[in-house]
């Protein structure tokens, strides 16, 4: 369960977040839409306590990341646009490293590596050094790391970029399963097909503010536009949203 209420964050005079509010219940997948520079990265960093908000409230399963960032992070799996792979480690060693950092014991790490390997199809490159991995392989490994410690909340920034159709479908199935298991998922994306296929709700932010929240259907009804992409552009008030 992720709850965000009227969060503000400024860097000097620049308001990166100027009143973001939304809730993501357990077992729900929510798409986070917004043009480039809307404040998505700042929001994600605020949710895991890397940045401290100026005002407002944030709760990750009841934990305030400003007060207990370690507690909040234990319940979060974060996938940003930085994959964070190490070229001189194998995929298995990489996953073991993050498992240990997340205080998992050896047996649990091995068990989870088997599970995520099956879930994301890592088998071919599990024992290979990460150097020279394709974009698809890199994102799969990064996703495996995100899911390894069974977080109750997932913050995913464009998880399907660079994936082929088969891998994208596999990822969708994996996320659907996680949602059914009760995970809250926030999915920052620019791909509307992903939103309609995977997400229960949509949050649209622009200029650091929440401009709309609801189901895809509700957004279309709210704007009076049948196509979600057009509705999004209308809400954001610029063509920039689809340019990205």
């Amino acid at each position, binding site marked *: 369960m992720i709850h965000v209420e009227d969060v503000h964050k400024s860097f000097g005079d620049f308001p990166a977040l100027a009143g973001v509010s939304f809730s993501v219940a357990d077992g729900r997948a929510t798409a986070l839409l917004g043009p480039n520079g809307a404040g998505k990265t700042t929001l994600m960093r605020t949710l895991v306590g890397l940045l401290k908000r100026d005002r407002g409230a944030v709760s990750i399963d009841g934990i305030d990341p400003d007060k207990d960032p370690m507690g909040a992070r234990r319940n979060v799996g974060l996938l940003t646009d930085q994959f964070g792979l*190490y070229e001189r480690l194998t995929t298995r060693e990489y996953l073991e490293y993050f498992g240990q950092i*997340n205080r998992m014991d050896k047996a649990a790490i091995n068990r989870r590596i088997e599970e995520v390997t099956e879930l994301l199809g890592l088998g071919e490159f599990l024992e290979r050094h990460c150097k020279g991995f394709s974009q698809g392989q890199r994102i799969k490994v990064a996703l495996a790391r995100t899911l390894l410690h069974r977080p109750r909340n997932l913050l995913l920034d464009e998880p399907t970029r660079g994936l082929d159709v088969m891998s994208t479908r596999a990822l969708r199935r994996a996320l659907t399963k996680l949602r059914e298991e009760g995970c809250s998922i926030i999915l920052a994306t620019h791909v509307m097909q992903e939103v309609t296929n995977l997400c229960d709700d949509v949050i649209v932010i622009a200029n650091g503010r929440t401009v709309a929240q609801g189901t895809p259907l509700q957004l279309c009804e709210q704007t009076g536009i049948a196509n979600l992409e057009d509705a999004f552009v209308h809400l954001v008030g610029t063509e920039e949203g689809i340019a990205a």
Partner: protein
Amino acid sequence: MMPQFLVVMIKELKEALRDKRTLNIMLMMVFMYPGLVGFMLHNQIQKATKTERTGIDIVMIGAAQAPNLANYLRQKSVNITEKDAMSEADIGKLLGEKKMAAVLKLGDKFGEYYGELRPAPMELWFDSAVEKQAQRRELETMLRDYGNGVASARMLAHGVSPATLSPFALQRFDTADSLTRSNTRIGFFLGMFFVPVCIFGLAAAIDSTAGERERRSLEVLISQPMRAIDLVAGKWLAASALAAIGLICELSVAHAVLKYLPLEEIGISWRVDLPTLALVIAAAMPLCLMVGALQVAMAMNSRTFKEAQATAGIVTFIPILPVMIVPALELNTQNWMYAVPLLSNQTMFQALATGQTLGALPYVLACALPLLLTAAAVGFAAHRMGSEKYVLGV
């Protein structure tokens, strides 16, 4: 469960030891410097024992005029090649070949003047740019001694005691033994053995901080449920561990080289035993911790590996300065020297290598400042790693 800083440290070490760049630097430093010192000392030994083994090669012009002198020189291991007259150009050419230490030319009137008890003309030609000056000086001493002998005999023949010319009877007593001589002869080398400590872990310190930023993997790491101090400590200890491993290997190689060389030939000796070597290494551990911490604290502020090489390179250079400057000042050992990182290790190694017993104070001083600087650097790095400004830069 393993502490998080240990998890990070082991991962960083694993990566560093798989990195050819780090390994090559380590191997080069471990073998290059002890090898260089060994080579220089070996050369000194070779030079010192060369005369004894092969004698001094000279050309003597007009030797027929002074057969006794020639025989005297031959008895003193001087290999004489007799020649008739040679032009200045020929002499210069001969010496330029660097085979002869000198050309001893007796003047045409040598025999005549010698017989008349007048100073007999004699010329010594040498090339001061050629490395045979010790042999040339040795030859001059022989000529002086021979001349003194002849002068004494002449004085006796005239009823004058040769002792008249020696108002003093000077005797020399050198209280230095081979150990203390070692101190001055190889003290500088000993200090230089600690310089690579600043280089062994440098690549790993940079790769694990600026390198992570450049590869864009640091954000993932700082988003994990791990305190900044654990992350920094892991990276710091990995860099310091490499510095310590490198130092242990390097000093072991140096110890083997110095034990193997016949240093007695040049009047010095290497009597450091393994427990003393272990003590020197143990006293250098705070230095390793300090260097790793400073390198991580400096390198983490750079965005690229190359940029960090410049900033963290400063840390490498600063501790080396006292080791270069202080020995040149030829100061006696003072307690403050034990308080300066790296210089303290050099001073301590010199003292222990020359058989001195050190009290507790030098050890306390040698540990104090490095440990204080380590704490400051790690504290700064952890604070910076956790700051918003840093997060925005990754």
